[in-house]
């Protein structure tokens, strides 16, 4: 029988099979950020242990740093300065390179790493951050871990891991115009649930996935964790190779041919066995938006909130009712046309150049609705510079958006900047959990184009109608 892509990468990194059947996997890359990497570095040092391969680790400042122009170590988050400075000091002491404030390479770890060529086909890459699965878009085996496992990876360059079950999710056919990778992943989670991928590593495949750009593939893989998958991955192809060419950490000229030959084998065999397979017709996907407090609370833009009274399961019913109350919505209420207070474009899900271009295409020559707060936070300093080079910042500013420095920003509330309680926010981020973007904040997840269209309308809007107008 053949092997899946993940099994192939797994075998290449299997240092040993342990007595209970778990694998000791070699870890090529350990990425850290100041939120959860800080404690891993500190705890490791306190235990008197050293970092095995500092050159294979990298620290990104992204979670706590402010995104205001002229930012320093001082942040609005109480205690944030200590996180930044302790992380920096630990990284320097351990000899680990830092993408720090002011460094042109700085950015959200899952944006900066791919654009530097750190994520590559066939590597094992971990980070104490659940959205590490984003980097599977490059054909890397990349997964999120806790801080203790980060310590383990730093100290031993390995992790003890049990091979997850294998799932393939095939998006077949073509996407409709105005439908994006964000809509694909929201559609998947909406249909199969926030626990739909539990226990499985998911390989995304099919014509609609192959048709996606590398950046869009990152959006798709980003929310694999919201599907409860162990990670997500997409087989590398010619687009992956083109993307990586000339990236600073990519194989050099002398190594390039051998690397290409190596990557050629990185695809699931035709007779590979998957424990589960889901097939979705890409043409069935509409621009998708969430109504509730879990990514599984997702419906087509022309859909409505569900009716809890129709739910036979008491727990499901209660959860739905709770979500509706939190969101200030009623059963059967239409999403399209719902008045909003704010719009946010950013996060490791949707803050890359193509995301900003998609939003700017909607915003060009338009203004956000009166009284609406609109914020755009590029995913990296490189993205910001590239966007400015083609004038996107002017489009965002002219439309009424704030234009920020790169970072995670208001994807989550850490005691600093946030939207106001009960405010309704349409956001390109990945989590609509209760209080995620601030106490009482009501988040609706959507694509950059949907967020831009909604910002202009002042209501949740179908971008296809706006463009047609």
């Amino acid at each position, binding site marked *: 029988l053949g092997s899946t892509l993940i099994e192939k990468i797994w075998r290449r990194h299997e240092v040993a099979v342990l007595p209970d059947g778990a694998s000791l996997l070699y870890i090529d890359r350990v990425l850290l950020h100041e939120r959860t990497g800080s404690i891993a570095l500190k705890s490791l040092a306190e235990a008197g242990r050293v970092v095995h391969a500092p050159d294979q680790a990298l620290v990104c400042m992204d979670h706590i740093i402010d995104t205001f122009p002229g930012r320093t170590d001082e942040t609005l988050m109480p205690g944030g300065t200590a996180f930044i400075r302790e992380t920096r000091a630990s990284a320097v002491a351990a000899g680990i390179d830092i993408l720090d404030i002011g460094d042109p390479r700085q950015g959200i770890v899952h944006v900066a790493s791919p654009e530097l060529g750190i994520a590559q086909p066939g590597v094992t890459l971990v980070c104490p951050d659940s959205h590490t699965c984003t980097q599977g878009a490059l054909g890397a085996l990349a997964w999120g871990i806790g801080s203790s496992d980060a*310590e383990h990876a730093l100290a031993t360059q390995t992790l003890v891991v049990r091979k997850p079950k294998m799932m393939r999710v095939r998006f077949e056919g073509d996407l409709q115009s105005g439908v994006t990778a964000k809509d694909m992943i929201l559609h998947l989670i909406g249909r199969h649930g926030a626990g739909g991928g539990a226990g499985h590593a998911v390989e995304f495949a099919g014509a609609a996935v192959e048709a996606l750009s590398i950046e869009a593939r990152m959006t798709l893989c980003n929310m694999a964790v919201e599907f*409860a998958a162990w990670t997500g991955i997409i087989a590398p192809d010619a687009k992956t190779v083109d993307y990586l060419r000339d990236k600073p950490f990519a194989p050099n000229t002398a190594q390039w041919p051998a690397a290409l030959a190596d990557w050629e084998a990185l695809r699931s065999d035709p007779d590979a066995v998957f424990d589960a397979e889901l097939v979705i017709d890409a043409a069935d996907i509409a621009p998708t938006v969430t109504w509730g407090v879990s990514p599984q609370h997702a419906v087509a833009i022309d859909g409505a909130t569900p009716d809890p009274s129709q739910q036979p399961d008491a727990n499901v019913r209660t959860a739905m009712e709770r979500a509706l109350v939190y969101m200030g919505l009623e059963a059967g209420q239409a999403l399209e046309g719902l008045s909003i207070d704010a719009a946010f474009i950013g996060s490791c899900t949707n803050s890359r150049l193509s995301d900003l271009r998609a939003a700017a295409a909607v915003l060009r020559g338009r203004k956000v609705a009166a009284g609406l707060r609109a914020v755009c936070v590029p995913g990296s300093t*490189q993205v910001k510079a590239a966007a400015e080079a083609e004038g996107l910042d002017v489009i965002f500013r002219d439309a009424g958006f704030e234009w920020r420095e790169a970072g995670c920003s208001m994807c989550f509330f850490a005691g600093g900047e946030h939207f106001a309680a009960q405010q309704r926010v349409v956001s390109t981020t990945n989590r609509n959990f209760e209080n995620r973007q601030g106490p009482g904040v009501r988040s609706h997840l959507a694509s950059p184009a949907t967020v831009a269209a909604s910002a202009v309308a002042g209501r949740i809007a179908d971008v296809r109608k706006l463009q047609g107008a």
Partner: protein
Amino acid sequence: MEKFVRLTAVAASLIRANIDTDAIIPSREMKAVAKTGLADGLFADWRYSDVAGRVENPDFVLNKTATRGAQILLSGPNFGCGSSREHAVWALHEYGVRAIIAPSFGAIFQGNCVRNGLLPIVLPEAVVASLAVQDQANSAPAMLTVDLAEQVVVGPDGARHGFAIEPSDRLMLLEGLDAVGLTLQRLAVIRAFEVDHKQARPWLFARPAAHSPGTTR
């Protein structure tokens, strides 16, 4: 790491699906680069009616007399989904929780539990529900026994529910082992693998000059 062998304790029911780590420990409650000082922020948004003033919400299960300080939690599927923050486990542990019984767990959270002496037990939804019903029915606190050595949960009615757990996770918890220390014993094997890996794929280990963004090869 603290060992987990056997525990008889009060169980608190928080039967909701998809309780995420943001809910377990809101980001703003992670105030320092530390694994401690987190219990006070556990479930802060649900536990307090006024979070800043720390005014307790009397309806929240951990604020009720019978279940305050419960060492066992009963919950819904996908408990601990979301953010990888190990602070969620540190907060639960510091509060006193030593075992969580749920139909399924977020993968990263489940691993984090085992690294910190906290036992995640997977039992079918119906079994968890039956344990929770017994809990709610009694005004006196429901006592559960969790026995890792025997791999069994004993309900207040004496019913025994066996559970599965990975052998290495079980051993790690029973013995309170240090995972990093164990793996470091294999460092020679790791180094030998590393030499071969570098030879097969040297580009993985190449580094560009520091602080040279965008340099072409």
